[in-house]
């Protein structure tokens, strides 16, 4: 429910959880934003047979974790650090996406304000 409650405040601008950003990424920023770079290489992901839904910006940590799992197969608790790194990265990623969501919401509100004023 956390998700639906979190996005509940954005219903008045017709914004839902899975919507994509519609504004120009540079709007309202003084500095230049760079697109995020994918650190894991495609062929590595393919050779490690990572399913497509996990090939995100944290996939390089995931690769590390997989390698660790492969090395210490029965004693998987030895990979706690790799797992933690991966989950941390996913967490940062999530926070970023939430920030984008909030930015989108505010931009839409601003647009409404401008249109309403005009």
């Amino acid at each position, binding site marked *: 429910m956390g998700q639906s409650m979190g996005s509940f405040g954005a219903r008045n601008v017709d914004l839902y959880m899975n919507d994509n950003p519609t504004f120009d990424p540079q709007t309202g920023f003084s500095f230049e934003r760079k697109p995020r770079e994918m650190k894991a290489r495609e062929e590595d992901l393919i050779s490690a047979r990572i399913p497509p839904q996990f090939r995100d910006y944290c996939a390089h940590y995931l690769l590390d974790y997989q390698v660790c799992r492969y090395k210490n*197969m029965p004693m998987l608790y030895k990979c706690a650090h790799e797992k933690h790194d991966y989950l941390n990265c996913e*967490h940062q990623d999530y926070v970023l996406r939430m920030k984008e969501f909030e930015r989108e919401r505010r931009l839409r509100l601003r647009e409404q304000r401008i249109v309403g004023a005009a």
Partner: protein
Amino acid sequence: MQKFSICFISFFVLFSFSMINIFFFSYFVMNNLVYILEWELISFSSMSIVMSILLDWMSLLFMMFVSLISSVVIFYSKSYMSSELNLNRFIILVLLFVFSMILLIISPNIISILLGWDGLGLVSYCLVIYYQNIKSYNAGMLTALSNRVGDVFILMVISWMMNYGSWNYFFYLDFMVNDYMMMMISVMIIMAAMTKSAQIPFSSWLPAAMAAPTPVSALVHSSTLVTAGVYLLIRFNSLLIDMFFFKVLLLLSGLTMFMAGISANYEFDLKKIIALSTLSQLGLMMSILSMGFPDLAFFHLLTHAMFKALLFMCAGVIIHMMNDIQDIRFMGGISNFIPLTCLCLNVSNMALCGIPFLAGFYSKDLILEMVSMSNLNFFIFLLYYVSTGLTMFYSFRLTMYLMINDFNLLSVYNLYDEDYVMLKSMFTLMMMSVLSGSMLMWSIFSYPYMIYLPLNIKLMVIYVSILGAFLGYLMSNMNIYSMNKYLKSYNLSSFLCLMWFMPNLSTYGLNFYFLNYGQLMLKNIDMGWSEFYSGQGLVLILKNYTVFYSFFQMNNNFKIYLFSFVLWVCFLMMFMMIYLNSL
């Protein structure tokens, strides 16, 4: 010689099989391997019926759990069923059950799935009616017929899959997702899985099936048979994700979870309480499955199998000790007499509730947090959390009834932990239900889930658990002057107590019409027209004919016969003459 009884041999074989499986599982999960073996039986009209075996980490792990639990249960039933005359039959039935379960687990082919599926239905029927009294016959028929609905759906799936030219559904999952036929197939698969896993319209059979012997309940009706439906849907999952019917399943399974949790609070039969808690957990698995997390459902399936089998085995010890009494109103204070069994019972109950670092905690907490992370409506969210609280609620009520109060049956009694065979097998499972959560958590999640929640939502599980435990304590507490809560809300209580009247609605209410129609058919068709037109009528007509014929035959007047032949010849001659004249 006593050592080499059928129980011991079966235990040994199954246990070794489970150890082999755990070895292969770690190898397969490490290398991310999938093996498919195929053997073509018959091929006709370019369709081939193949016996195929699919080995991947999922099937291997499930096989390992099934064989481990069944080996332990067989070991346990050596003592539980020790005075049984037909022990061999019992063990063979259980082994047949394990065999068909394994057949179901390893087959990626809908025909061989049917083989296992029907085997499960048949053997579970035989096991439910094992004590041959009226109650178990009724329960067995209810079980068999409810499962039969699912069998019919699987059969229809087979005929629909004929359109694809092969029954290896495994190969079509990725490519045929948007196909109309595949949509029909998946609806039927969902229906079949709902019957096997006792989801809401079909859930009345699971508490009824508790007429089976307790080891059977431990193996069949808690950990393996009922999870067959969940397992089937896990296999079909990639097909079902975006379907409308999967959303319906989410609602139904959520309601199942809720309904079973409430009914367990009103139930007094020890085994039925556990059965209803199984039903609640099945609803949990189904609903998380229908939200699109098959691996979470699988995880909960495995841990749940462990502690639920253990719970049933403890209940079996108690029932055994109390002279077949299952009603918890007769019990109380048994922790003073059988501390070891009560230890196991408490561990499994707490694992069920999700007390931290027991098996249930890992799966259940993960499931609930993933529920919180997803986009859901408030109703489903409520169902999840209320049901979690209810789990705590009935577990505490059970604990209070069994252990805390005074013994309630006789004034002279002598109860003790008599049997080390049972205790040994229970301790094996207790170790597993402590450890298996974290072990599985490490091993099967190659792609870990990230959870990021506000504090209160994160702690919501603990809130509802504490609330549930408190209510459970209050509910089983009874003073002299206490009002009877049951009587005050009699109608509502009966409604909740009888599983929302589901047995009446889905079975007793429904089958009346079929029976009535069947009787009409019998009267009018079988014993009426079809008798007249096929059986008796035909014989009557033929008899008349043969009497008529015998009149000619039995005159036995040779002269007339020969004369008639000559007459025939003369007749023909005459015509021939006419014919020849006309030439």
